């Protein structure tokens, strides 16, 4: 009978203890998990929207293949020395000037140029992190969303080649040449233009005397190219928030280009001795 009398208060105490020490923490954990699931659902929605936009944008490109091709031709993915030479030579012939020399110089991308300074900066950060445990370098990053918005920076990845051309011709012909080059179907930037009356000392006695209206032109033109962009997993760019491209730039480009030089196509003729033609 004594045991039965103690049973109710004992079970009450046990129930209260279970409630405080087991149920309450479990309930907190369940609520946290529900909040995490809500956030994960939001992330999933965002990722699904962006993935759907990527598919729509890709179809948009499929429907505008000619515009995509124009952009790829104007601003290629790889270095194309042969095209630079061919375009310069073709347009010089069209303008009636003599292309006397072509010199090329590679320009490294900003990314490559900053690699050396970046390495020393990383060494500094490591040193700071080791001596200061609470510094930013040592602090753990809080839980991040599924995707991180990044700004693509094509200018830092662009590479280029500076081509220095020397020409001889009349003023109007020289002007026509660099106007045609400017409006050719290849991205270019005139870094330096020099036009001068050729000096008598620059000519050798064997060369015929130049007509007095013949000028010497020297141009340095930068032809840029951009290696194929590759996105890191877990990141997305602002265009993925849209469902269509703005092709206005392509239309403007099409209107600007007046000199279209077809790409080179060669047929080699194999021979046993390459030193004999």
């Amino acid at each position, binding site marked *: 009978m004594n045991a039965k009398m103690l*049973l*109710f208060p*004992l*079970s*009450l105490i*046990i*129930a209260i203890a*279970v*409630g405080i020490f087991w*149920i309450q923490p*479990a*309930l907190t954990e*369940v609520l946290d*998990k529900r909040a995490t*699931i809500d956030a*994960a659902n939001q*992330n*999933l929605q965002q*990722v*699904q929207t*962006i993935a759907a936009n*990527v598919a729509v*944008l*890709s179809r948009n*490109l499929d429907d505008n293949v000619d515009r995509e091709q124009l*952009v790829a031709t*104007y*601003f290629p993915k790889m270095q194309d020395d042969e095209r630079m030479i061919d375009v310069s030579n073709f347009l010089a012939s069209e303008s009636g000037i003599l292309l006397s020399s072509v010199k090329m110089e590679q320009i490294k991308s900003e990314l490559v140029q900053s690699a050396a300074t970046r390495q020393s900066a990383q060494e500094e950060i490591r040193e700071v992190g080791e001596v200061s445990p609470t510094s930013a370098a040592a602090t753990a990053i809080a839980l991040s969303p*599924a995707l991180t918005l990044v700004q*693509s920076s*094509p200018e830092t990845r*662009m590479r280029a080649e500076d081509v220095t051309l020397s020409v001889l011709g009349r003023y109007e012909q020289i*002007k026509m040449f660099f*106007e045609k080059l*400017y409006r050719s179907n290849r*991205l270019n*930037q*005139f*870094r*330096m*233009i*020099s*036009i*001068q*009356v050729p000096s008598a000392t620059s000519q050798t006695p064997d060369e015929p005397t130049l007509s007095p209206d013949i000028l010497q032109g020297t*141009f340095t033109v930068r032809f*840029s190219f951009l290696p*194929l*962009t590759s*996105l890191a*997993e877990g990141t*997305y*760019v602002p*265009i993925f928030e849209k469902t269509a*491209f*703005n092709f206005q*730039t392509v239309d*403007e*480009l099409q209107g*600007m280009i007046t000199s279209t030089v077809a790409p080179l196509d060669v047929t080699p003729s194999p021979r046993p001795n390459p030193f004999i033609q």
Partner: protein
Amino acid sequence: MSNINLSQSPESSLKASGGILDKSLGISIGLLILAFGAYFGLLFYGKTLDSNLASINANIETEKKKIASDQANRVVDFQDRLDVIGKSLKSNMPPSDNLAKIEASMLPETRLSEYSYDMEKQAIQTTVIAESFKNIAEQIVAFKKVFSNVSVGDTSRSEDGKLKVDMTLSL
């Protein structure tokens, strides 16, 4: 009256207290079942939420792979090129523009022997040939109408007696 029995029998009081104790036993057991039931119920629900979360995360990873695919690279690559081309069209002015300014501001008494444009310095170096200093001064005035600044450099005489003046024209 002396035969009235006023005391209760022990059996009936025992029966009453036994009933209350049985009820309290039931309540105690019920309380324990409720407490432990709630706890294990929460544990089970937590496990369900865990598998839900794992499923959502797996879906997120699948969708993320679509975004890091060749299709996505094609899209971002095209947009990158558009951005660069757009900036170039806005900022890259025709090389003949500066020459047109020179052509429009030349005086009949002067001519050029050299023209040199440097994009980084945003300036034109030129050598003007004229008969007299008056012509040179007038040419400077004409240049100042189209260029932001004109600074005069070295002056010399050519073999045929004409004046040669180096000038820097700021864009």
